[in-house]
């Protein structure tokens, strides 16, 4: 039996790897996801055959509650709510690892046939630490994305030394636990401190840095599964966890590169800690007047264009304007105008956020261009239409060494013949700085809520 279980785990691991491999193209991605799910199904079924699994009622109850909740979440969450949902799922993964590690501890404590071993004590401690941090950290991330917890950068004196102190406390308690594993209060202390640490680590991270936080927590949830694998000495968990851990780390690095910031800088919280401490808003503040247009004037400008690039940002997600944007695209295309989309790596609140929203609105994915694939083409573009994006199109990132976002890769929208910026007001973006683009001679401000404004523009274009 043991042999059959191990072989099945091997098959499941191979299916996970093939599943992820097929995610490299939108054509095969759905099949890949199915293969991974099949691998999971095999792993679950053979585990039920394990000689230590003797009662099934609790397992069935768990399946029913979890399965129903999971299905409801998967079908009821709107696409704009995907960052929250992924955040929450990360948390459940971490929470499960924490609970399994605790359960193992009590198993070793209460049953004679399982005894403590030094290596297991180490892995139980690690599993609790990573699982707990992932759990509460993800709940805070969920709260921030959902608007329950403040999306602002939270800072207080002694923040980082205190977090470091908590981490050291966990390590010391872990050493005590390895020496004398019979002490229940130590394991509970490790759990409690790790839970608090998860909250404090994510709390300082600001809203627009969430793509990094979510990616990092994704990686943690994988590492938590691996840690549980070490506790249970189960290769299947170790492999699956490592794949996810690697995935999260890569996404984290891509997101950090997209903002030209180090991981440390994001984790410690906020743009303010980058470079100079003084606010740059004063000296570098651009002067002059902005030109504002209404939908009729704008429709006339669009009517004579031949190449349009739409740049969506978080504002499009907030206003749920993706369908309105698709309608605009259809009208433009019916007039023979070429329409493409330029997607900045950190646009939105999670990696690939804009792509999913536009896919939902039925925009073909081959119209979406990554920053490096479209940036050189902006001089040939008649109109760059920016919808709810700000810092990722601020030219100050290219030349203003005093700007906090200096060095961040941006979309070269200012090279287009005309730049149309749809915003609700002149307010600053996440980085808290003015955008000199708005004052450029080729820039036109088109004020209004993204959805209303785009609908009006589409309407005016139809009449033109």
């Amino acid at each position, binding site marked *: 039996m043991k042999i059959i279980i191990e072989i099945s785990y091997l098959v499941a691991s191979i299916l*996970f790897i093939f599943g992820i491999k097929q995610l*490299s193209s939108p054509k095969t991605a759905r099949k890949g996801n199915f293969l991974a799910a099949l691998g*999971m199904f095999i792993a679950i079924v053979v585990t039920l055959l394990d000689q230590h699994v003797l009662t099934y009622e609790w397992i069935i109850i768990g399946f029913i509650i979890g399965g129903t909740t999971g299905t409801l979440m998967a079908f009821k969450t709107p696409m704009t709510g995907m960052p929250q949902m992924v955040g929450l799922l990360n948390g459940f993964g971490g929470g*499960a690892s924490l609970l399994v590690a605790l*359960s193992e501890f009590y198993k070793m404590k209460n049953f004679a046939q399982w005894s403590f071993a030094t290596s297991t004590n180490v892995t139980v401690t690690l599993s609790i630490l990573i699982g707990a941090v992932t759990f509460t950290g993800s709940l805070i991330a969920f709260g921030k994305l959902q608007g329950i917890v403040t999306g602002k950068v939270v800072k207080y004196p002694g923040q980082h030394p205190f977090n470091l102190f908590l981490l050291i406390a966990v390590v010391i308690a872990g050493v005590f636990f390895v020496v004398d594993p019979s002490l229940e209060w130590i394991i509970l202390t490790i759990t409690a401190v790790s839970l608090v640490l998860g909250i404090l680590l994510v709390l300082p991270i600001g809203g627009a840095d969430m793509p990094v936080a979510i990616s990092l927590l*994704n990686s943690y949830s994988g590492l938590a599964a691996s840690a549980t694998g070490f506790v249970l000495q189960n290769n299947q968990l*170790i492999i699956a966890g490592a794949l996810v851990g690697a995935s999260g780390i890569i996404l984290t690095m891509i997101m950090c590169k997209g903002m030209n910031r180090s991981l440390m800088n994001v984790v410690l919280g906020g743009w303010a800690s980058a470079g100079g401490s003084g606010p740059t808003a004063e000296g570098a503040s651009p002067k002059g007047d902005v030109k504002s247009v209404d939908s009729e004037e704008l429709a006339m400008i669009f009517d004579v264009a031949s190449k349009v690039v739409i740049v969506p940002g978080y504002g499009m997600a907030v206003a749920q304007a993706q369908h309105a944007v698709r309608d605009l695209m259809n009208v433009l295309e019916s007039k023979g105008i070429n329409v493409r989309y330029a997607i900045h790596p950190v646009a939105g609140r999670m990696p*690939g956020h804009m792509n999913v929203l536009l896919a939902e609105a039925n925009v073909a*994915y081959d119209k979406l261009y990554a920053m490096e694939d479209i940036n050189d083409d902006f001089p040939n573009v008649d109109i760059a239409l920016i919808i709810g994006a700000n810092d990722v199109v601020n030219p100050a990132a290219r030349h203003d060494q005093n700007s906090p976002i200096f060095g961040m890769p941006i979309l070269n929208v200012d090279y287009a013949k005309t730049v149309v910026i749809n915003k609700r007001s002149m307010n600053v973006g996440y980085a808290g700085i003015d955008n000199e683009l708005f004052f450029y001679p080729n820039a036109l401000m088109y004020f209004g809520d993204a959805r209303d404004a785009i609908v009006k523009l589409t309407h005016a274009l139809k009449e033109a």
Partner: protein
Amino acid sequence: MDALGILMLIYVFVLAIFVGFELITKVPPTLHTPLMSGSNAISGITIVGAILSAGLEEFTISTILGLVAMVFATINVVGGFLVTDRMLKMFKKK
């Protein structure tokens, strides 16, 4: 478990990390959200540990912890795979 046993597990872990890096770098940015939710579902593999905890013969605190872990991990697995499929269904080429 002896040191050699632990070393074998670390062996597997390190190699799997390398495989993960190779695979994920080939995923295009357009699929990064489904990649996250899909890999998230895979990290629900902890369900294996939850089953082993919840299925113990005697009912103890381990069983209760295992049951809650079971609920969490099942939400992770079922929710993750289903929502990924829902998203991937929407990705169409003109």
